[in-house]
């Protein structure tokens, strides 16, 4: 297999793509938003349960999509739990740079929790496939839209 493809479709991604974590609609969700990629028609709905102290107590998603978008949504739900709104947005900023900037390294990250970014780094293979960056960021766009108060987000 070619290296760029191996980078894109790493085992971890294929596993999350086939067996997504937190693929459900949590009963306690108090924020949600739909993400939509008009290019491929993929849709994802992200649910958040924010507690009284402004922390993400639960995060889950529903939807269908390609291996990259499902894996990214699944991994996002794993790294967001317990974070504040500010931390979640910060993590998305760093993750977005990870997916788009070839010279971005983890020591440039604003996020203090390097471990979360290291886990997300497997998705950075999309750098070599510009049209797939939208797949990797779809759920994250929906997540920030949910934080903003809901509605829907598109990758356009």
């Amino acid at each position, binding site marked *: 297999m070619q290296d760029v493809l191996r980078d*894109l479709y790493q085992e971890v991604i294929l596993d999350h793509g086939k067996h997504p974590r937190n693929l459900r609609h949590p009963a306690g969700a108090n924020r949600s938003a739909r993400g939509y990629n008009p290019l*491929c028609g993929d849709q994802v709905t992200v649910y958040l349960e924010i507690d009284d102290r402004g922390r993400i107590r639960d995060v889950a998603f529903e939807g269908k999509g390609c291996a990259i978008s499902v894996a990214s949504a699944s991994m996002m739900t794993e790294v967001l739990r317990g974070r504040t709104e500010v931390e979640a947005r910060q993590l998305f900023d760093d993750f977005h740079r990870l997916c788009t900037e070839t010279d971005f390294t983890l020591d440039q990250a604003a996020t203090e929790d390097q471990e979360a970014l290291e886990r997300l780094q497997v998705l950075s293979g999309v750098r070599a496939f510009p049209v797939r960056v939208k797949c990797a960021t779809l759920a994250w766009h929906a997540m920030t839209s949910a934080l903003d108060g809901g509605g829907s987000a598109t990758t356009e």
Partner: protein
Amino acid sequence: MATAETLRTPAAGSNSVQAFDVDRVRADFPILKEHVHGKPLVYLDSGASAQKPTAVLDAMDAVYRHGYANVHRGAYYFSQHLTDRYEGVRATIATFLNAASDQEIVFTRSITEAINLVAHSYGNRLAAGDEVIISEMEHHANIVPWQLLRDRVGIDLKVAPIADDGSFRLDAYAALLTPKTRLVAITHTSNVLGTVTPLKEIIRLAHKAGARVLVDGAQSVVHGKVDVRDLDADFYAFTGHKLYGPTAIGALYGKAELLQDMPPFMGGGDMIRSVSFAGTSYADPPHRFEAGTPPIVEAIGLGAAIDYVNGIGQDAIAAHEAGLLAYATERLGQVEGLRIIGTAKEKASIVSFTLDGIHPHDIGTIVDREGVAIRVGHHCAQPLMQRFGLPATARASMGLYNTPQEIDVLAKALIKVQEIFG
């Protein structure tokens, strides 16, 4: 096989099927020598846009280098000469579609523009409660303009259903026709399923009910002969870039008596007879519908593309593509877990498919690394995707330059996709 009655009509002067030499044809398309990611380009996306032969490239280049001017305006040689050639392409298109007169051919920039033109200039005179019928397998370009018309005048928009194999259901369609039906807007060949609709019968039934018919011919003129008078179509639109011509040029055929009665779509230069601040009178069709400086060089390119296709022969092209379709259907059908979406008896050389457990976008990315260009996504036909309960499909669409060996490359690339996904 593309064998609807109208696609089977022999073209005068066609080469014999035996004379078709795909290697010679491929030599006419410079881009086919290109490599992608180190692999020879396998272009299986002609349904989205076809590649261009040297004849088209040279014809356009020559205009810019040796004879460019605006048309319909100049008293000088270059303008008059290019105006003659530009209007000559109108005649070429009229012959290509077997229109009664070149005055029935309106240049448009796309089928989208052609349909919007009809939706405004013809559609605006419909009244609340009048019915327009489309089908479940329309491209967004033949859905949205009618929804906008519904918003403007309050028409009822009805949708004719299709069968599970992707074929058009004449019985269900016939049941939708009422005395209130004013227009049927229908594809000749589905860009997703490849289905060739029973157009002659669709039109006959519409006329019997007193309705007019607009045909989206995007995927049809490329696969075989279209005869608008034999079909008795009222409007028929096609685009150049899928017919091996340039982008931004296409044509709308309209029956003379209909065009004569229709108000302009866009206002501007070129579409007027005389202008004063008190009032303006409009040119006769087709110029009434051609406001502004047209895509002149693109029109010359389209003329060259039609000449090229005629030179090879539409029958020969149809036979070659029928062979490709049969081969692709069988070869791809052997790939485990591959499901072909659209298996109607009357089909053009378009094969949409899904692979078990693998999203079409992932398929597209991986086969691209093998040099294979296919379309993945919803193909601007989201309602059709919903009809089949699919988010997207992968689609191989074949043109006159494709070969069975290229289908093999695709099939092998699909095996690689499955290997990656284990």
